[in-house]
C-alpha cells in the first residue's frame, strides 16, 4: 500500500532556514545543509524547500545552495520560489530535485504549468496555492508571499491548475501557517473534493492527531509540516525532529 507522505517543508530566506507565523515573524531555524542532514538521518518521506523571498526580490533560485542540499539528501526533493522559466526548472532538475513548485508565476502565466508538465511530466509539477480567509469567512487565493490578493477562489483556481497539467497541489492556509492549531479541514476538504490530483495539506499541523484528521477527514494525500518538525513545541526552541513512525501510521487510516 502507498504510504501517506509526510513532508517537512522548509523555508529558505537568503542562505538560512527560517520559520514563519502567518507568513510573517521570521524565526531563524538553522543552516539548510545541517538541517537536511538530520532529516536525511530521520529517513523522512520527502522534503520540500520554499524560497520565500525569491519572488518578492525578483531573483532566480539559489542554484548553488540547492546543489549543496542535494548532496545531503537521499529522498525525493521539491523546490519552489522564483521559478519563472523552463531554464530555471531545467537547472533545478539537473541538480537532482524531482519536483518544482510554482505559485505566483502561475497566476501571471497559467500556461507555464502546461509547459512544465509537457516537458517534465505532471509528476514533476507542484502547483502551490496560498489561501486567506476573509473576516466574512470566504476564502481567496493570495500570491507574492501572501502580499497580493487575487480574485480567485481556491476551488476554481485549483481546478484551473489541474486542467493546466499540475501533478499535485500544495495547499497552504496562510491563517493557520505557523499556528500549531491544526489544519483548516473545511478548506482542505473543499479542494480534495474538487480535484483528482493529490493535495498536500499545509498550514497548522501541530500534533500527530492533526495529521490523522486532515488525512482521514479531509482526504489529504500528503501532509506538509513546518513548525512541528523544527521546534520542540509551540513557543520553544529549535529542535529538528520528525513524528514517530509507529504513532503516525497508527493515526492514519
Amino acid at each position, binding site marked *: *500500500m502507498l*504510504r501517506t507522505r509526510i513532508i517537512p517543508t522548509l523555508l529558505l530566506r537568503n542562505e538560512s532556514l527560517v520559520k514563519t507565523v502567518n507568513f510573517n515573524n521570521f524565526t531563524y531555524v538553522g543552516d539548510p545543509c545541517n538541517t537536511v542532514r538530520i532529516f536525511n538521518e530521520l529517513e523522512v518521506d520527502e522534503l520540500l524547500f520554499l524560497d520565500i523571498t525569491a519572488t518578492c526580490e525578483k531573483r532566480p533560485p539559489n542554484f548553488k545552495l540547492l546543489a549543496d542540499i542535494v548532496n545531503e539528501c537521499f529522498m525525493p526533493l521539491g523546490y519552489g520560489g522564483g521559478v519563472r522559466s523552463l531554464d530555471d526548472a531545467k537547472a533545478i532538475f539537473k541538480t*537532482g530535485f524531482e519536483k518544482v513548485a510554482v505559485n505566483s508565476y502561475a497566476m501571471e502565466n497559467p500556461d507555464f504549468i502546461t509547459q512544465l508538465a509537457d516537458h517534465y511530466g505532471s*509528476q514533476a509539477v507542484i502547483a502551490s496555492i496560498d489561501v486567506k480567509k476573509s473576516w466574512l469567512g470566504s476564502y481567496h487565493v493570495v500570491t507574492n508571499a501572501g502580499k497580493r490578493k487575487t480574485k480567485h477562489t481556491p476551488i476554481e483556481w485549483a481546478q484551473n491548475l489541474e486542467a493546466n497539467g499540475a501533478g499535485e497541489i500544495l495547499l497552504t492556509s496562510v491563517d493557520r501557517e505557523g499556528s500549531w492549531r491544526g489544519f483548516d479541514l473545511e478548506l482542505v476538504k473543499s479542494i480534495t473534493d474538487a480535484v483528482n490530483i*493529490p493535495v498536500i495539506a499545509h498550514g497548522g499541523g501541530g500534533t500527530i492527531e492533526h495529521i490523522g484528521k486532515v488525512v482521514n477527514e479531509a482526504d489529504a494525500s500528503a501532509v506538509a509540516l513546518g513548525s512541528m518538525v523544527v521546534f520542540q513545541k509551540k513557543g520553544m526552541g529549535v529542535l529538528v525532529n520528525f513524528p514517530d513512525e509507529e504513532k503516525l501510521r497508527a493515526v492514519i487510516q
Partner: protein
Amino acid sequence: MITIVDYGMGNLGSVLNMFKRIDVPAIVSEDLDEIAQATKLLLPGVGAFDAAMMRINNTELRKTLDRKALEERIPVLGICLGMHILTRSSEEGKFPGLGWVNAQVTKFPRKTDFKVPHMGWNIVEPTCESPLIKGLPEESRFYFVHSYCVHVDNEQDSILKTTYGVTFDAAIQHGNIFGVQFHPEKSHKFGMQLLRNFANI
C-alpha cells in the same frame, strides 16, 4: 567501476551522488569508447519510452549496449524508464524496446482509488532470490514515480513485486540484466543497500 549511461534521459546527479556516499566508483558517460570499456552499466531514465529508444537507436549506442549486455554479459541495471526499455515493448510507445528481457510494459488501469502516476513510498515483496536484493530488510520500502509498469513473461525473472491497484514487477533479473521500477537513489538506506549489492555483483 560503474558506468552510468547518459543517453539524454533525465537526472543522473542523484544516482552518482548515492554511489559517492557508499564509496562506489562510478562515472557518467555518453562516450561510446568509454561505454565500450565499462565493466558494469547503469541505465537511468526519466521521460518517455519512444524518446529513449530513439536516442539509443539513432546512434551507435545501440550496438555497443547490445554487445556489452548480450555478448560480454556484464551486469546491467535499468532504473525506472531504464527498466522499461529492457523489455520487448511498452504501451507508452510504438518503438520496440531493447528486448533483453521477456516482459512488457502496460499502463496502470484507471481506478478511482488509485491515482496515476503511482507516486510515493511503497513496500516491496521478494519473489525470487537475487544478489541484487540480498540483505534488504523485511518491509523494505522504495520511492516510486511511474504511470506504466512491467510484467515479466516468466515468473522466475521477477525478484520483487509491488501492488498498487494491480500487482507488478518492481525488480527483475534475467541473467546479467537487472531492472528496478523504483528510484534506489531516492530511497534512503534501502536504495543504498540495493546499489551496493549491484556494485558487489
